């Protein structure tokens, strides 16, 4: 094996030397890593728990479907250009998934669930189909309304409220959530709109069309080596749901979200956005606040 202190081989260009240097350093580093105890037994225990949680989540969601009466509702549908392409619902049809000729299907981004986290893949088939239709159409709506730098917007398959935008290697996480408010003892007071300069947090109370009061939030934080990125959020209560639209920065590339909180307020005030919110308010996609998703 070539060792670091040896002269580099022959006439290789400098880039090859760099690669060799890194490869050699990696070999030395991993060879010097602390010894590994056997992880298989622990992995089996953890894996069995994951299986059990997935089964439990499926059972709980099936119960929720019966309670909510999920079928037969009208869902507004938009095409890629932002105009309504049909007035009736994919969810109301015998086949719940629209064909590619009716609504552009956006392939979801796959994210592997972490320990304790459930995924849309764990949902029963009918509920999965319902959420995928909504998510696909919400992604189209978001792509139409958000700045072009965030396009294309794609659903993320781990949860109905997760999306991802950006091109050319940029990945901006987007969350669009319409979550039923908790009731009774689980209900919580709205968080006050506070500026916290030390944490790079700015919050403004704004008014949306129809007199809906919203909070527009910009959050800046340190992520790596003192560099900072910024994300933006708008949130408000609509009907009996809490609506949150958040766009985060690309943490890998250390690039801030290409949208301001003010621009998110404009998105939230758009009729297309409100129509989608109204649908999700009437036909909830997410668990009520205060309940634990996935276990």
């Amino acid at each position, binding site marked *: 094996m070539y060792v670091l202190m040896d002269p580099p081989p022959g006439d290789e260009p400098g880039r090859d030397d760099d690669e060799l240097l890194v490869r050699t350093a990696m070999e030395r*580093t991993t060879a*010097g890593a602390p010894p*590994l105890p056997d992880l298989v037994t622990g*992995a089996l225990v*953890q894996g069995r728990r994951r299986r059990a949680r997935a089964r439990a989540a499926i059972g709980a969601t099936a119960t929720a479907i019966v309670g909510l009466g999920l079928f037969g509702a009208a869902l507004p549908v938009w095409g890629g250009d932002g105009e309504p392409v049909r007035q009736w619902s994919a969810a109301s049809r015998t086949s719940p998934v629209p064909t590619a000729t009716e609504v552009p299907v956006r392939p979801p981004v796959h994210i592997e669930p972490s320990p304790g986290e459930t995924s849309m893949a764990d949902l029963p088939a009918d509920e999965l189909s319902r959420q995928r239709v909504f998510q696909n159409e919400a992604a189209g709506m978001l792509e139409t309304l958000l700045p072009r730098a965030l396009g294309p917007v794609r659903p993320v398959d781990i949860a109905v409220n997760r999306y991802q935008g950006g091109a050319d*290697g940029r990945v901006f*996480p987007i969350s669009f959530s319409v979550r039923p408010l908790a009731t009774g003892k689980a209900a919580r007071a709205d968080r006050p709109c506070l500026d916290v300069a030390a944490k790079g947090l700015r919050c403004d109370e704004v008014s949306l069309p129809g007199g809906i009061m919203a909070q527009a939030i910009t959050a800046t934080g*340190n992520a790596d080596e003192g560099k900072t990125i910024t994300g933006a959020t708008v949130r408000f209560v609509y009907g009996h749901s809490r609506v949150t639209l958040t766009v985060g920065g690309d943490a*890998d590339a250390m690039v801030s979200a290409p949208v301001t909180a003010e621009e998110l307020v404009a998105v939230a005030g758009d009729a297309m956005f409100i129509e989608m919110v109204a649908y999700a308010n009437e036909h909830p996609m997410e668990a009520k606040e205060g309940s634990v998703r996935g276990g």
Partner: protein
Amino acid sequence: MFTGASRGADGFEEFARAGQHRLYRTAYLLCGDADAARDLTQTTLAKLFQHWHRVRAADHPDAYARTVLTRTYIAERRRRLRDLLAHTPIAAPAPAVGPELTVTLLAALAELPPRARAMVVLRYWEDLSVETVADLLRCSPSTVKSQCSRSLATLRARLGDAHLYTARS
């Protein structure tokens, strides 16, 4: 590396036992410390067990395991971004203590964004092709090339001094 020999009706334990050390070494380069690398490796093995029927049916179970490991690492880093947006400051993990070159490599890797770090580890440690890395990380080959090129320059700048130091000692 894993082989297809363990693909029996219930070959998970043999599969995991044969592959855990390789996964751990990759995780060590990704995470930069042994505790986090052990957690990442165990989580990866647990996920493989959860979906063992899929892993067993895969053409290349070792590649499947590597993909789960890498994506779990990146997903974990993304969760940290969500914490950031929830107004929780995040501190970078301290590199492990060890010989000079090891410390320098881990510190230099820690300067890279998570995806760039994963690209470097997959390309130069796992020795995967540009196309395979691009496929695994769902980006274009040109992105892998440009990121690796930039990352190499960063690592070279940091490792160069350690190289001289090691060579003199």
